[in-house]
């Protein structure tokens, strides 16, 4: 069947996109200002550092998960992989006596290995991402516990020897002024990820795969390789997150980390990355992650404890996804206009043209004339439209009634048979 060969007006959808892009940052600012005004002791440097502090690891995870989600996949294992990597690194340092730098490299390495594992399962063996990463979630949780022998791993406390890596994430001056360098590190990484996604082949292919995997494959894109790479990035980010976690919290407990991935995914989704793939941005993810952090820091300042924080985070996630669905639906909707609506659109078009012409006119008298004409057209349009529409509605009602009548007759006839 021939599709209607018309170019739909994209203005509507364009607006929606811009709105979506602005909405998340706006929400972040509004929430922050809200707590700053109504929360007790919220608007302070310490709280800000707190907000930034509590976001490193979720932020890193979020960056990785963004890559995966843009391909149309999901990574449920990043949280536990992060913790497994951290605890294995800690064990290497404490129990096996590895030097700190090597232990940290090991953390990165473990993350990357799990990324490869996920990527292999999904791109080569064809497992659905949800299942594959769910499996990896459990496997990594177990691996961490096995290797650490179910003992917690403690990284050196600040000031102790080998604690130099902590300064990556928080720099404390001799006169006890703390500076959240970790935030800078996270932003730097986010910037690199942004460049990769928008300015490299890898990024383009990741978007192409998420938008239409079949078309990408038939265009000669090595879909397996690039899909795999997204999971490897996620694994690497989990590794970096592991180092950040070790730096901020010092002690890593075994069997920890389940649930972190959900915060990372939530942040990604709040930031406008579409779970169906093909659309998203790292900047959005960062904002999504900070919206959650601000909630986490802000709600206690209003005497609402942790349980409220999860509650509101959930509300924000649902809201963000609903918005996304609504936006996609509106963008892809084909409206079928009735004659009355068509008439109105047409007249509105001419009125818009005339209004534009109005601004070009300089002579006052001509302006007045044109204004009068526009007003007349509007009045006429409204009248005619109302008449046409009410006729259409009546006709519709009549048709429905007729159909019901017809159904009754059929049923009666069938009953007689």
């Amino acid at each position, binding site marked *: 069947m021939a599709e209607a060969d018309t170019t739909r007006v994209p203005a509507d959808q364009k607006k929606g996109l811009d709105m979506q892009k602005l909405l998340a940052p706006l929400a972040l600012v509004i929430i922050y200002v809200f707590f700053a005004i109504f929360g007790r002791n919220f608007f302070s440097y310490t709280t800000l550092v707190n907000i930034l502090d509590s976001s490193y690891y979720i932020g890193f995870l979020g960056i990785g998960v963004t890559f995966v989600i843009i391909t149309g996949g999901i990574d449920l294992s990043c949280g536990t992989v992060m913790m497994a990597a951290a605890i294995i690194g800690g064990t290497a340092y404490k129990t096996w006596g590895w030097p700190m730098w090597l232990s940290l490299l090991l953390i990165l390495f473990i993350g990357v290995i799990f990324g490869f594992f996920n990527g292999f399962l999904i791109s080569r063996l064809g497992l659905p991402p949800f299942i594959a990463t769910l499996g990896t979630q459990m496997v990594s949780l177990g691996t961490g516990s096995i290797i650490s022998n179910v003992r917690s791993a403690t990284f050196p406390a600040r000031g102790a020897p080998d604690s130099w890596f902590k300064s990556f994430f928080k720099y404390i001056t001799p006169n006890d002024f703390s500076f959240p360098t970790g935030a800078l590190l996270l932003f730097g990484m986010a910037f690199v990820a942004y*460049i990769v996604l928008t300015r490299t082949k890898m990024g383009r292919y990741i978007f192409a795969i998420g938008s239409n995997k079949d078309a990408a494959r038939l265009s*000669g894109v090595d879909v397996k390789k690039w899909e795999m790479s997204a999971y490897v990035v996620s694994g690497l980010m989990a590794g970096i997150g592991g180092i950040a976690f070790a730096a901020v919290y010092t002690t890593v407990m075994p069997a920890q980390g389940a649930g972190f991935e959900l915060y990372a995914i939530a942040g990604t989704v709040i930031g406008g990355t579409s779970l169906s793939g093909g659309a998203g941005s790292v900047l959005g993810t960062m904002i999504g992650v900070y919206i959650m952090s601000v909630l986490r820091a802000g709600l206690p300042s209003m005497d609402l404890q942790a349980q409220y924080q999860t509650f509101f985070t959930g509300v924000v996630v649902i809201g963000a996804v609903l918005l996304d669905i609504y936006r996609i639906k509106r963008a892809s909707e084909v409206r079928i206009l009735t004659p009355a609506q068509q008439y109105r659109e047409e007249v509105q078009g001419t009125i818009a043209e005339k209004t534009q012409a109005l601004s070009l006119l300089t002579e006052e008298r001509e302006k007045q004339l044109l204004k009068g004409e526009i007003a007349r057209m509007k009045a006429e349009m409204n009248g005619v439209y109302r008449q046409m529409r009410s006729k259409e509605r009546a006709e519709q009602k009549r048709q429905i009634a007729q159909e019901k009548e017809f159904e009754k007759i059929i049923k009666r006839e069938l009953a007689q048979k």
Partner: protein
Amino acid sequence: MKNIDKRFAGVHALKGVDFDLYEGEIHALVGENGAGKSTLMKALTGIFPKDSGEILYLGQPFNPKGPKDSLDAGIAIVHQELNMMDHLTVAQNLFIGRESMKRKGKGWLLDEKAQNKRAAELLSRLNMDIDATEKLANLTVGKQQMVEIAKAVSHDLKVLILDEPTAALTDREIDDLFVIMRDLAAKGVAMIYISHRLDEIGVITDRVTVLRDGEYVGTEKTSELSKERMISMMVGRVIYEEPKSHSMVAPDAPVVLKVSNLNAGRLVRDINFELRKGEILGFAGLMGAGRTETMRALYGADPSTGMIEIEGTPVLIREPLDAVRRGMGYLSEDRKRYGLALRLPVSDNSVMAAYNELSPTLLLSLKKLEDTAAEFVDKLDVKTPSLQQLVKNLSGGNQQKVVIAKWLIKNSKILIFDEPTRGIDVGAKSEIYSLMTELAAEGKSIIMISSELNEILRMSDRIAVMCEGRITGFIDIEDASQEKIMHLATQRG
């Protein structure tokens, strides 16, 4: 059915078609792709309401609002693709939605025993040798089809429509099916039999109605109708454009692509052909002849066996990636699903295959990409407000041009155009035709699959005709005619 009319947005699919069917008759409905067979049946079963005309059923006006209405009235359709649940048993499939219940049908629990008995009775009444408790997945396709027929018949049926019922069956199964059809006819059930297999029509049907381009051509008794006459009724269409008079390929043009013994499943069997530089090789055939499947196998999109030589060198093509590297480009018949990333902009889509060539550096040179995209958008005259426009907002013709741009930017030598003008308006169609002619003149080789004989005759230098997974013949354009193509397209290989 009298004077049935159906219009879709811009397309007049049925133009005053008449059709009549007697009790106990097997009536064939034939025509080329797009002749209106399916649309007519959809009007009869209420899937699409007709726009005008009337249907008299058992002497009464009949206006089904949907498939349920027609089913209630005793009209059922069995499609080529089976619509049943593999993991359920035959009996469960037969009575889905009207299961036997315990306590004489009034209870809350299912009565599998009674249902199996009911199913067994039905199957034996129809002389079908099928176990009612067997899982459907364990039956052959032929048996599954019979279950579908049994399901239709169980609805106290008067009219049964069979849409390409034999396409997936073996000869043995076809014989069994015909026995059951004759049996049903003897019981007074009227059947409408849609098929491309003209030989079978001669065997099983009583009368034949031919449609062409949505118009009624005629109804004849099968016994008085030869196969040649049937074909000429099907194809005798008005040709708007002159077909190509002679091949434009230079006599000494080298062979660019040679395919030997390509096999991939049921629809790609022992395919052999050569494609020369600057040639447009048309692939004609009816729906389901295996043309798209052949090209997908050749392109590495589906697994296959066989030998492929490009410019004299044997090549191994296991993935589309390999094919693209060797200079092939594929324009899918379903461009939205296989050709374009709809949510990405025009620029990204047009350079998608050529990142390596355009920007070998780590960081993409965005300007180079944009400039190239702009150059080809301009060259192909793609109507888009900007390069950043999302492809899904373009019209069909312009989307197709973006796909073509993708392969031109990649500088592919062998282009496979699968139904290049499907869903495209007339103006864009002729633009694409002249573009293809230009490309061939520049020395690119083109394989064009088309279901429109007009298009095949107008564009091809040579025509390969397929039927049921085999190439049944090649025709040089000088000797080509609609009749010859249709003859080969209905000839079982």
